[in-house]
């Protein structure tokens, strides 16, 4: 159980009305890796991501996490099992201070206040936000809010961390700091799945990439191989033959 893949999706589909956002997707996430979930806009990345995070159930198919069937389980339950996520648009609790935000996450593992606060402080230290501990969530800059989201997720002590476009929209320096943090997190044994559509940011960071296109898996493999894949190039840049 502890050596197999941490996530396995079997024929996972999700429809929104007439739109098939995910069409019978088979894929898996290996334990301890950083997996990039990439693809052009509308490829179904966010849908698949939300299905694994438990934001909504799949229309059909099965999702396994850590050897157990988690299909259709609510997000709170998945968090307790060890799946944590961040949001594309940071969703901090704005009436709460930074440390209180992170403490909310820590309560899943540490029901008692003082232990939860200690955990939260340790995580803030880890992501480099401890000097902002008492600031209001609403006072943070956008990159700091991203860090807060990561801190909050880490406070739940996840086995799998789902990052939704955490590096998008950052300055190069901020993005580098973000990449460094993600590497550091992986070294502690946390498996990471990240959704990005900016290829040049993710490619040096990920061990493996899964490319989605029109709701299906288009390609999968090492980042260097994936970017040379003809289908992938066609999906991103358009098909030259058809365009002509």
């Amino acid at each position: 159980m502890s050596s197999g893949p941490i996530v396995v999706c079997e024929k996972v589909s999700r429809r929104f009305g007439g739109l098939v956002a995910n069409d019978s997707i088979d894929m898996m996430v290996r334990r301890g890796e950083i997996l990039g979930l990439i693809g052009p806009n509308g490829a179904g990345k966010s849908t698949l991501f939300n299905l694994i995070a438990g934001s909504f159930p799949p229309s059909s198919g099965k999702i396994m996490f850590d050897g157990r069937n988690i299909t259709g389980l609510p997000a709170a339950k998945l968090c307790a099992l060890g799946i944590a996520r961040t949001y594309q648009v940071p969703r901090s609790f704005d009436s709460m201070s930074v440390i209180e935000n992170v403490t909310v996450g820590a309560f899943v593992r540490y029901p008692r206040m003082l232990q939860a606060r200690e955990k939260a402080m340790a995580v803030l230290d880890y992501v480099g936000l401890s000097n902002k501990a008492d600031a209001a969530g609403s006072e943070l800059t956008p990159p700091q809010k991203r860090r807060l989201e990561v801190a909050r997720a880490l406070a739940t002590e996840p086995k799998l961390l789902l990052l939704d476009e955490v590096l998008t929209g950052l300055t190069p320096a901020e993005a580098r700091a973000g990449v460094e943090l993600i590497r550091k997190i992986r070294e502690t044994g946390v498996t990471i799945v990240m959704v990005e559509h900016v290829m040049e940011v993710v490619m040096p960071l990920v061990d493996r990439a899964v490319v989605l296109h029109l709701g299906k898996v288009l390609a999968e493999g090492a980042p260097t191989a994936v970017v040379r894949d003809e289908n992938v190039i066609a999906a991103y840049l358009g098909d030259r033959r058809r365009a002509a």
Partner: protein
Amino acid sequence: MSEIAVAAPNNSFVASRRRQLVIALIVFAAIALIPRAVSDVYTMNVLILTLLFAALSQSWNILGGYCGQVSLGHALYFGIGAYATSILFVKFGIVAWGGMLAGGVLSALVALALGYPCFRLKGHYFSIATIVIAEIGLLLVHNWDYGGAALGIQWPFNPDSWWTLQFARDKVPYFYFVLGLFAVTWLVTYAIVESRWGYWWRAVKDDPDAAESLGVTVFNSKMGAAAISAFFTAIGGGFYAAFVSYIDPESVMHFRFSLLMALPAVLGGVGSLWGPAVGALILIPMAELTRSYLGGTGSGLDLVIYGLLVMVVSLTQPEGIMGIFKRSAKKADAKVEA
């Protein structure tokens, strides 16, 4: 090094919590001295109602302020408490203490039963549902023969006693009872707010989806807040019945009571420990004064003034009156640091 960094903020956290508690105990003790200085029955009556609504608004604040589920139907729980206490006393001879407790438990159960469908609604839709349900409750009681229907229930006159909670001549015991009730609701709020439940409620209020992703069972959190809030509201209703010795549907379940529970918290500061009390201290005496000086027909002038006050506060000071204190405390801190 890192251990120091971890321990230090907890130290200041624990110290500030302790300071809050000490201040509260001093405030309670100071309020307890008031009857030594005030002998006027009318003033005592206003003080009792102020403390009662401070306690009720404190209870409302648990669900409406911290958990962000704005109920405008708490008159239902107030009425359940008042009716349970009255019926158990008048028809079964059960003393008010037992009646209040029974009313509280019944009210909490009703809150859970109603929360089950209603907590699927969000924001204004939830608030509208609470208004409608409370109005349905009022209509049902109006037509409920066993509960006295529109005539209500008259308490028999008994000798003064803490046991039956009846005091015909001297109102001071009522004062101590509501002071106790206010202190209990304050202490319960104080204890829960800085615990897992309290943080979960605030997270649910700010962003339920993000809260859910961090392991917060949003639905259960709302249900818990509703049950606790309804329990204490009903105890307040039971006390009110004993205090006025006569209840009818309009006098305990009118929409006005729902407003009177929500408004002090909104005026004083939703989701703050002292907001409901500060709001009640302004609103309730004002309501009593306008009623006694501008005619007691219940024309609702007090409600007009509340409405104006709440509008002014929410436009200029959305965090309520307590927000002013919070901000000036923060400025003072910044000055000390600089």
